């Protein structure tokens, strides 16, 4: 494959880097007054990139035509699916940000630029077909994310979140690098295809250690138990638009990355990592559910909920089948909509002075003071709990079906029984909003843009979402087929 063809394949990355740099310059010259404009330009760039990768997804791109730079990078349907989710989530967290930061006089033009660079990193993560590309993408995303977490410079909690995220993220990167070096040492290559070939057959102890360290590093990034401890603190401390971003885009990227590493690079050693993934899945479901019960802060609750959801997504991975990979992608799509809806509703909770409300107790009686807002939140909560007919049920449906079809019946039974624990705290939020007497704290009005995003997300997770299932399932199947093409 010649160089020009490779460049054509990485067109979204080029667009993101060039426009990120241009917007950075614009930010430097025009100052923070232009931050609104820069935000909208960044949204346009993300939309353009999504449009660029859409043909690859719809056409189910796979095979040699999608490989760039001698196996470093793969622009197949799988990466296109994840990218579209990432770009949409990033754009949504750009759109909701100005209203939040303006109030604190903290809107900086760097915010959209950082999100663009993070999106660039995430695009590399989901397209990586070599350990080195993977690492570069991961770090590019992480460095932007550390800065974003502490974006409210004057706020202690935000600074603390940034620091915690950085220290633990650096540790995770170290573990990942160590795993990668072991893998390299025992297989002699960093390319996924090469590792796959080298590990065909039995796996030696050294390579097994490498595999486990790689998975541990990835577990940090997707906040799976037992490497989840940073999540509640970072989610709570980071500014809410940034939390919206963290809960959606990087999660999609890290999960997709984990899927590619597991199914492509270590695809011939499924038995070796399946136990690791099964343990992480069940532990995440249970710890995520139990941890959330005592929370009084809605952002912390949603953080535990995201840990819980990662557990369900990993059940799809544990199946190690194309059906499981497709189920993961469907779940991720629905999860992104639910998280966006949930966090945007949290953004819309303001008291009479316009300050953010984050305590669950202050949401009491929301159904009477703000019925539509309460309805959106209730839909998100029932959906996260996986109660039909809300669309969240469909995500659980496909992953558990994949697990049962792959013969993992015990895993599915335990996982689904544990999901009942989770239902308890989702119900608690509904109870506070619907059954309790109004606390009359949430009185501020909401931004129309927030309404649009919350409304779209709610519409998506409403029963109407089921009409999308054939279409969504078809795209996810194409993406999963591309992931398994190497096999």
């Amino acid at each position, binding site marked *: 494959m010649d160089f020009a063809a490779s460049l054509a394949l990485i067109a979204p990355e080029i667009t993101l880097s060039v426009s990120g740099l241009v917007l950075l310059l614009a930010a430097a010259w025009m100052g923070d007054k232009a931050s609104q404009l820069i935000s909208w330009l960044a949204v346009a760039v993300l939309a353009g990139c999504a449009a660029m990768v859409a043909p690859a997804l719809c056409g189910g791109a796979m095979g040699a035509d999608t490989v760039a730079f001698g196996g470093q990078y793969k622009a197949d349907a799988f990466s296109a699916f994840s990218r579209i989710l990432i770009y949409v989530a990033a754009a949504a967290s750009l759109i909701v940000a100005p209203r939040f930061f303006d109030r604190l006089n903290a809107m900086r033009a760097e915010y959209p630029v950082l999100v663009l660079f993070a999106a660039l990193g995430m695009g590399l993560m989901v397209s990586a077909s070599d350990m080195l590309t993977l690492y570069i993408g991961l770090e590019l995303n992480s460095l932007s994310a550390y800065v974003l977490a502490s974006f409210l410079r004057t706020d202690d909690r935000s600074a603390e979140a940034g620091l915690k995220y950085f220290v633990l993220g650096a540790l995770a990167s170290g573990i990942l690098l160590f795993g990668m070096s072991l893998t390299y040492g025992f297989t002699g290559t960093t390319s996924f295809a090469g590792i796959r070939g080298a590990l065909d057959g039995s796996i030696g102890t050294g390579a097994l250690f490498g595999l486990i360290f790689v998975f541990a590093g990835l577990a940090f990034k997707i906040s799976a138990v037992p490497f989840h401890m940073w999540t509640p603190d970072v989610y709570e401390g980071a500014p809410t638009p940034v939390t919206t971003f963290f809960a959606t885009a990087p999660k999609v990227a890290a999960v997709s990355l984990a899927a590619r590493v597991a199914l492509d690079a270590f695809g011939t050693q499924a038995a070796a990592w399946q136990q690791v993934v099964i343990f992480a899945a069940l532990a995440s479901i249970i710890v995520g559910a139990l941890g959330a019960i005592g929370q009084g802060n809605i952002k912390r609750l949603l953080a535990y909920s995201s840990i819980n959801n990662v557990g369900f997504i990993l059940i799809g991975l544990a199946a190690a089948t194309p059906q499981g990979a497709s189920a993961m992608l469907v779940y991720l799509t629905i999860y992104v909509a639910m998280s966006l809806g949930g966090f945007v509703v949290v953004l819309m909770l303001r008291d009479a002075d316009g300050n953010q409300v984050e305590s669950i107790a202050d949401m009491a009686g929301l159904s009477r003071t703000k019925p539509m807002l309460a309805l959106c939140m209730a839909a998100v909560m029932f959906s996260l709990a996986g109660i039909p007919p809300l669309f969240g049920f469909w995500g659980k449906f496909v992953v558990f079906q994949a697990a049962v079809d792959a013969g993992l*019946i015990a895993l599915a039974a335990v996982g689904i029984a544990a999901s009942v624990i989770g*239902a308890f705290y989702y119900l608690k939020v509904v109870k506070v909003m619907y059954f309790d007497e109004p606390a009359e704290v949430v009185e501020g009005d909401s931004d129309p843009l927030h309404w649009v995003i919350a409304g779209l997300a709610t519409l998506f997770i409403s029963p109407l979402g089921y009409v999308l299932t054939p279409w969504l*399932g078809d795209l996810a199947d194409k993406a999963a087929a591309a992931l398994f093409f190497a096999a």
Partner: protein
Amino acid sequence: MGGFPILSIMLLVPLVAAVACLFVRAESARMIALVATLVDLALGIALWASFDIGGAQWQFVERAPLFAGFQWALGIDGIALLLIVLSVFLMPICIGASWNSIQNRVGEYMAAFLLMETLMIGVFAAQDLFLFYIFFEAGLIPMYLIIGIWGGKDRIYASYKFFLYTLLGSVLMLIAMFWMVHESGTTDIPTLMAYDFPPHAQTWLWLAFFASFAVKMPMWPVHTWLPDAHVQAPTAGSVILAGVLLKMGGYGFIRFSLPMFPEASAQFAWLVWALSMVAVVYTSLVALVQNDMKKLIAYSSVAHMGIVTIGLFAFNVQGLEGAMIVMLSHGIVSGALFLAVGVIYDRLHTREIDRYGGLAINMPRYAIFFMIFTMASVGLPGTSGFVGEFLSIAGIYQASSWVAFVATTGIILGAAYMLYLYRRVVFGDQKNADAAALPDIDKRELLMFAPLAAVVMWMGVYPESFLAPMRADIAALDARVSRAAPAGDAQLHVGAPKHEASSHGEHGSAAAHDEAATGEAH
């Protein structure tokens, strides 16, 4: 039949009305809800009228491949038909019962009820395994809200208990469904009803389904959510809960457990019998000592559901027919009893039995209706309760005389607690001045009670109207399960006629033959 999608329309009418109710004022919401439920009732009657008895097993079939992995498949047989008619019949009465007693958040209340109606019809009409599951589970949301928002003092505890109990019961059923679909390659319920799963797998599948239906039914010992939910729910909520939601468990046994896993059903019949016997006797005794009227009726529901499960697992036509009639009868009667409690609760705002007494004097019309429903609950001949209980017990007698014996004591205990309740509330001295001053039922309440009483009598005097639509389906089910039916201990068979007694006449010989047969039967 034809191409008119009557089932989809029956689902759509309440759904659209529910959305409309959210956006209008209280008076309009009540009106919309009443009109929508009456339209559905009319459609339900049309459904019954155009149901071809003796025709195809599945009628009014609709298929649309709308979704991935499952499809929009509706269709009914006689069993589903009767349960749908029961649902649409009770709904306008529920709306009527809430007309004055619900004053806050009326729009949301009516919306929740209409949504409930859609989901109930959906459960009985679904012909796709996963579509059924979605309807089955979705009912939790409106019921949770109904109990939690408009319920009594301990509503929050009750709503949690209701939700989590039923959810935990149901999720394992979903895993079993995945396995079934993986194994058989179809989600179509009629196909699955004829599919033979390997017996060892049936055991596990049956247990997973049993977990769900036993909680929904509810069977002892997982019945404890029911008294809490019933007592705390508003009157109309209790009516729907007792009248229709409990029937979903029984329907589940008829539609899934028995035809899909006949061998496992036979294998676990002893378990069902044991739990049902405990339920019948134990919950009847518990009902006897209740001071709260709603709690008493709630426990009586558990006892009646015990009779249903006994009938279902008798593995013969009488038992199955009896179980269905008990379900229909209990749907009407317990609904009516909750309404009767609601009527006096609306006046005095207490459900404590001791606070009433001598209502026959100041509320004579009320006393008559309450009497009819009490008698129907007891199972007096001429009411619907008798037909169902008689058939159920006649059915189980062929399978196990001991179970029949214990179940029959339950009926005696049932008479005890119901008559005791009636005596304390309606007869006796007017010991409480405020209870003595209560006005008799008004026109609205009369309109609610009269159709219920009429149906109770109809079902008691001429049950053929209700047995006819489901006869063929029961026969088909019986044919499916009979291959696995456990051997009965009654050993009914025709004895050999005696020839040697020449001194006896024709009549005497027949009597002796009867005697011999009875002797062998014991």
